[in-house]
């Protein structure tokens, strides 16, 4: 077997393992997808009337739903990757990782398996959330191409966040730590254009909100789905995603390798 073919085969095995884990622990997936659904309902039915009125004259709950969806989709990404960090940390604190390391298998396959599994989970979660949003009356004027582009940028952002979560999971000394460190990711869409326009924020916070990575992603998705001009938001979003993914990937590989030198427990 060539080294490429065996890498592919090993990655497939690890991917399948990750999917089985997800199926065996459905409560985790339900919890991870449940959180953004609760947020969606909360923001539409509790805050939606008031926030919608704030968007402009003759605006209401339904207009706020249209505004909200991209923000909720980012919350969905941030929520799902909590599970990634936990899964990775569980692997690293268990004995099986040492078994993998003493076998002649593609070194990257363990982490790649997690990433692919999480990516699939992310896409499913996004689909569920969009379904729920449609159920609540969300409508988009975007054609198939714009939808595809929106999903593409969400998948890219998901990919970046997953690698970040992998690194956080590797860096965590325990599974408990790993379940806490990625929490800040859920907060970030709030401190950006996810839920309210950044222009309404006080200065200081507004500058942060405008320049943090979730904002261009939210703006790009919102622009694509509402049919508005996307401008250079898409480029900024893509640069953030690729940069985060690359940085997190390098950090992960370093953490994964360094564990070799760690003292036996």
């Amino acid at each position, binding site marked *: 077997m060539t080294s490429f073919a065996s890498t592919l085969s*090993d990655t497939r095995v690890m991917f399948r393992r990750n999917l089985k884990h997800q199926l065996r622990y459905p409560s985790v997936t339900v919890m991870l997808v449940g959180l953004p659904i609760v947020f969606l309902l909360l923001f539409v039915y509790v805050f939606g009337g008031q926030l919608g009125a704030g968007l402009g004259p003759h605006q209401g709950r339904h207009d706020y739903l249209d505004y909200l969806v991209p923000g909720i989709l980012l919350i969905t990404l941030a929520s799902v990757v909590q599970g990634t960090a936990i899964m990775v940390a569980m692997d690293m604190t268990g004995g099986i990782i040492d078994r993998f390391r003493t*076998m002649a298998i593609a070194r990257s396959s363990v982490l790649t398996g997690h990433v692919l599994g999480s990516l699939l989970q992310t896409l499913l979660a996004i689909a569920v959330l969009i379904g729920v949003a449609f159920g609540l009356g969300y409508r988009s004027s975007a054609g198939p191409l714009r939808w595809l582009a929106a999903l593409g940028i969400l998948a890219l952002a998901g990919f970046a966040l997953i690698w970040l979560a992998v690194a956080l999971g590797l860096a965590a000394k325990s599974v408990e730590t790993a379940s806490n460190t990625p929490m800040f990711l859920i907060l970030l869409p709030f401190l950006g254009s996810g839920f309210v326009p950044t222009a309404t924020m006080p200065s200081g916070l507004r500058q942060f909100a405008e320049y943090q990575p979730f904002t261009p992603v939210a703006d790009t998705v919102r622009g694509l789905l509402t049919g508005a001009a996307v401008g250079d938001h898409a480029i900024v979003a893509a640069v953030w995603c690729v940069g985060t993914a690359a940085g997190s990937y390098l950090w992960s590989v370093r953490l994964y390798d360094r564990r070799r*030198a760690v003292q*036996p427990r």
Partner: protein
Amino acid sequence: MSRAGTLAVSASGLRKSFGARLVLDGLDLEVAEGTIFALLGPNGAGKTTIIRILSTLITADAGKIRVAGRDVVTDADGVRAVIGVTGQFSAVDNLLTGAENLQMMTDLRHLGRRAGARRVAELLEQFELADAANQRLSTYSGGMRRRLDLAMTLVSRPQVIFLDEPTTGLDPPSRLTMWQIVRDLAAAGVTILLTTQYLDEADQLADRIAVLDQGHIVAEGTPAELKDRIPGGHFRLHFADGDLLRSATSLLPGAAADQDQLVLQVPADGSVDSLRQLLDTLHHARIAVERLTIHTPDLDDVFLAVTGSHAAGERDRDATTQGAAPR
């Protein structure tokens, strides 16, 4: 090359420290092909570190190490292809079933679908896990889990197997099962390097034993050789009172009396004749003995002799005459 051909494991000048703590201090190790070699030592002696280095999990600071003729640093993947490792902590996937765990191994060893399925069935049968094959590991007992762990290691029929404390935490029946598995593997020509802190385990299983203490090998040889290095065994006679003890002491040359415990220690080679002679002498002098125990030299004595301290879990090693069963 002439020697390396017959050595499954050879390490020289092995050195490793974690931060300021020196764990292995210039250690040499040679394990002949097809033999069982035991690394014996208390916790913290460096046993696990040796296994982790030999199995390519960590790298040594210094030393030349070859496993199955391959260098662990320059040909790590070559080594990984021919070794199997079962560590101290169970290396199984708890969310999968037994069969799925094994299948994952056959997939990762690239056995192919059909050959893989056959091997899985074979191992489930051999390790008496067929009934539990499709159950999740949460339902497995400690012994079953350890058997699965070893079965996963054996998927690719490794030439050299490293077992880090294979029976720690197992109940006595599971322990005996594990011993039998190890013996069967060796009989099939596999080289086994195991670590243990149980002296009788090394004695029972190993062709050669290295006693490890604080990163050094302090003694090495066959179990018999190691036992020959220390004075022979003795009988221990327990008396009801000090008078009987004193009379017996005067009768038996070379005996050492313990007045507090009312015990007399009589050096002996452990033969039936010497026992009969001892009992005759006491009988004729009408000295009543409460209890007699026979102490044969064991590895604890070796450990005591070579390191000056007892191994982990200092225990009473005496076997009583009534039930001289091995523990």
